[in-house]
């Protein structure tokens, strides 16, 4: 069965070629849903451009005819971001898959939206940091997150995805250096140093206009090129682990340890998240089991550097124990350790933990929150989750220096059971509602979370957000419905 109309289809075929457009439901259906509870919505067309010019022409057509456009790379955002709320054109960007440049001297790369983490990691590993041909070390790193290898580096970065360097450097959207974007009205703009030369090294000291396209969930334009910082791989790595009796105890330890800025990542997971698979539906943890387990990745250029970091970490743990913080030693499982040190990892990025006992549904209240709110919100969330028959499979991860970090609760649910879907959705929305007053903000938020945010947002913030959206996208064609303001 075909959808849409022939005229639009014919124009899209003229733009990209008939092989790369479809309005057949057979080809549209994979774009109707994702892992989350989002109800399937059928687009009318899927189109796969190869060039920036093609993207421009598609947007010009869509803007002229006021057809919604949904940018898409892999559809694995766990937020329903690519589900076409109002139908329209899915722009599947996977054919724009070129790594355009890896500069091993200035340490940045320029990529297209279809570049996967798999392809990018392989290319970076094969490139050595150097100066005028003189190599310093082997391979480059980027912030490798918890996601399938097919996921888009660009899409993840512009939506504030996290990577394994988040403790050292911050979230991946903090690693951006340049951007090329096609506006909804089809103009192409370069942002950052690349607007003035071929160098894609930095946005600074210019006005940060990239902020108009990061965290906007594809509602303001289509990013067609992205510059990102890359970092030499440090050859020495280790994982340090400790468990704790409570969220309060683990947070005390994490904040103290992060004070020294010596690790690439420090993360804690609740007992329920540490189980494989995640416990679904909820049951109590064993009485003697710790409430939280933490791992911290340290890296260095020598064994001495690693030993020094391990020594300071041991001091922190000992000092916390002496203060009465209930910390316990535990050995990080070797398989998991391999996943943390040989990156990016399929083990870390897998979803095998999430499907064992449920019916394929996964979502989360994924949020950025100040560290001091972690234990407060964990106790609130735990009560909410248990009340809905769900496990509080919670994760805390520090972002660059104990200011704030990730607070999220990985939530499997059974898509085949409407009651299970409803329970998960209700629990997660309730968690978001409880968290906002404590400083918590959802990232890659589903529409339901946006509505919660908008209900309590500063009026001036919403005014400016709406004004910017209207200015950039006067016909509201870009991923409409996702911000809850248009």
């Amino acid at each position, binding site marked *: *069965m075909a959808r849409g109309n022939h005229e639009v289809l014919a124009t899209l075929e003229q733009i990209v070629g008939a*092989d*790369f457009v*479809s309005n*057949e*439901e*057979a*080809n549209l*259906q*994979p*774009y*109707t*849903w*994702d*892992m989350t509870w989002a*109800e*399937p919505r*059928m687009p009318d067309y*899927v189109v*796969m451009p190869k060039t920036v010019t093609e993207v421009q022409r598609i947007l010009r057509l869509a803007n002229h005819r006021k057809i919604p456009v949904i940018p898409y790379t*892999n*559809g*694995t955002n766990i937020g329903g971001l690519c589900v076409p709320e109002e139908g329209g054109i899915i722009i*599947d960007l*996977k*054919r724009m898959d070129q790594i355009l440049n890896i500069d091993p001297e200035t340490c940045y790369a320029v990529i297209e939206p279809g570049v*996967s*983490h*798999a*392809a990018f*990691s*392989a290319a970076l*590993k*094969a490139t050595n940091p150097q100066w005028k041909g003189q190599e310093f070390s082997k391979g480059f790193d980027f912030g490798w997150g918890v996601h*399938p*290898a*097919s*996921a888009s580096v660009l899409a993840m970065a512009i939506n504030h995805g996290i990577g394994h360097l988040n403790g050292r450097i911050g979230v991946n959207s903090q690693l951006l250096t340049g951007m090329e974007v096609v506006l909804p009205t089809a103009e192409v703009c370069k942002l950052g140093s690349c607007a003035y030369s071929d160098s894609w090294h930095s946005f600074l000291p210019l006005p940060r206009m990239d902020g108009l396209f990061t965290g906007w969930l594809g509602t303001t334009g289509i990013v067609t090129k992205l510059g990102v910082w890359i970092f030499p791989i440090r050859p020495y790595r280790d994982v340090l682990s400790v468990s704790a009796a409570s969220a309060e105890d683990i947070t005390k330890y994490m904040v103290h340890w992060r004070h020294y800025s010596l690790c690439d990542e420090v993360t804690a997971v609740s007992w329920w998240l540490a189980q494989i698979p995640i416990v679904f539906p909820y049951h109590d943890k064993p009485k003697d089991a710790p409430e939280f387990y933490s791992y911290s990745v340290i890296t260095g250029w020598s064994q001495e550097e690693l030993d020094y970091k391990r020594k300071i970490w041991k001091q922190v743990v000992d000092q916390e124990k002496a203060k009465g913080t209930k910390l316990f030693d535990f050995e990080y499982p070797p398989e998991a350790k391999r996943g943390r040190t*040989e*990156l*990016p*990892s*399929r083990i870390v*990025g*897998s*979803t*095998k933990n*999430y*499907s*064992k006992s449920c*019916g*394929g*549904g*996964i979502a989360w209240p994924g949020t950025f929150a100040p560290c001091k709110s972690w234990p407060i919100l964990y106790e609130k969330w735990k009560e909410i989750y248990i009340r809905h028959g769900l496990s509080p499979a919670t994760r805390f991860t520090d972002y660059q220096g104990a200011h704030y970090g990730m607070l999220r609760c990985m939530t499997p649910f059974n*898509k*085949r059971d*409407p009651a299970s*879907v409803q329970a998960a959705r209700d629990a997660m929305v309730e968690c978001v509602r409880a968290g906002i007053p404590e400083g918590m903000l959802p990232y890659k938020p589903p529409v339901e979370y946006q509505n919660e945010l908008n209900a309590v947002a500063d009026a001036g913030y919403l005014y400016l957000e709406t004004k910017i959206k209207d200015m950039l996208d006067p016909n509201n064609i870009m991923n409409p419905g996702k911000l809850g303001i248009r």
Partner: protein
Amino acid sequence: MSHLLKNKNLEVAKIYDYVSMCTHCGNCKYGYEYGSENNFAAMLCVQGDKFNFDSYRGSRGKVSLARSLMHNRIGFSDAVAHVLFTCTSCGACQQMCETDIKPYILRMFEALRADAWKQNVKIPANIKAWSDTIGKNYNPYKEKHEKRLDWIPSSIKSSLPKKAEYIYFVGCTASYRQKEVAIATAKMLQKLKVDFTIVDDEWCCASPLLRTGQYDIAKDFVEHNSALPDKYKASAFITTCSGCYRTLSRDYKMDAPEGYADKYGKNLPNTKVIHTTQLVDEMLKKGEIEFTGKFAQKVTYHDPCHLGRHAEVYDAPRNILKKVPGLEFVEMYRNQKFSFCCGAGGGVRGGFADYSLETAAKRVKEAESTGAQVLTSACPFCYTNLHDAIEMNKSPLKFEDIVQIIEPIVKRK
């Protein structure tokens, strides 16, 4: 609520619980593994590589299609049939999957095709054509069954016993198309002093039928072939064809999801199924056979999907090639569990010859990039596609089945 099973009569609905386990993560869409030196990263899905849309890429697209059909959100159409029948069933997406649907992925593809046959949709004409005649000819090539053994040289024919320990299950492709592979295999088995015979009532193993979802027709074939070992007092089948190997060793013997014992009963319970590469590898390891000459060429090996990912036989052919005097063995970038299909399987060579050969040409290019002079494999069906692609693209490579490489220079000690 759109995630409820509504179309309960579909064949694929029988495994709905497993299809529901897919989390839509997309691991299946791309080949990847980290390593201490370099991370492996490459496109493995031949169908996705060609047709690009998510519906074609990896198992996620087909799971999504299966769900949409079961949820009654879309109906069967020619476009649905195209998605279903252009998959080569190579198993790369299954290799990458880490969720609980993993073992059921190929079964799901076949169940969906079984459903498509019952609908008024466009089944590829060539598949339809051989489907109409296979019940009479017992092969998908529309050749006469009586000609099945025409390939056998008289010197071999005269020495074949009526009954033997092994039945060389030749398969349709080697019997009717790549006859030189069958001849080389029979000669080799004689040289190795293997007690074998070749039977004139061998039927198609049913691989093309099962892979394309023709469950009802397949039943007779499974039952017929399963009776052969008892009839000829044989304890094992030897195959050179990877498709036959996969079908006899798994589909006949094993329960779902690996096989079809749930549909046809547990067949061949006391019959071993051995691929020629396994036989030779084992004999080399035991020191029973030796090479008497050289094969002084640079050789790369293509893993047949049915022998590799489907049955996890990766080492045996490599062990052999590495022991052949003078042979320099080189790997392609995509190898073993991360191999790239030749493009012939799943009914694709018959149904979509151009696309099939285009895929084979990609594989041939990859083989060329190794600097090899010879591309080898262990399957007459891969032989057909890769050999044709070499010829059509005027590649400098030469294709030889692994049996053709070793037969002239191997002997029993």
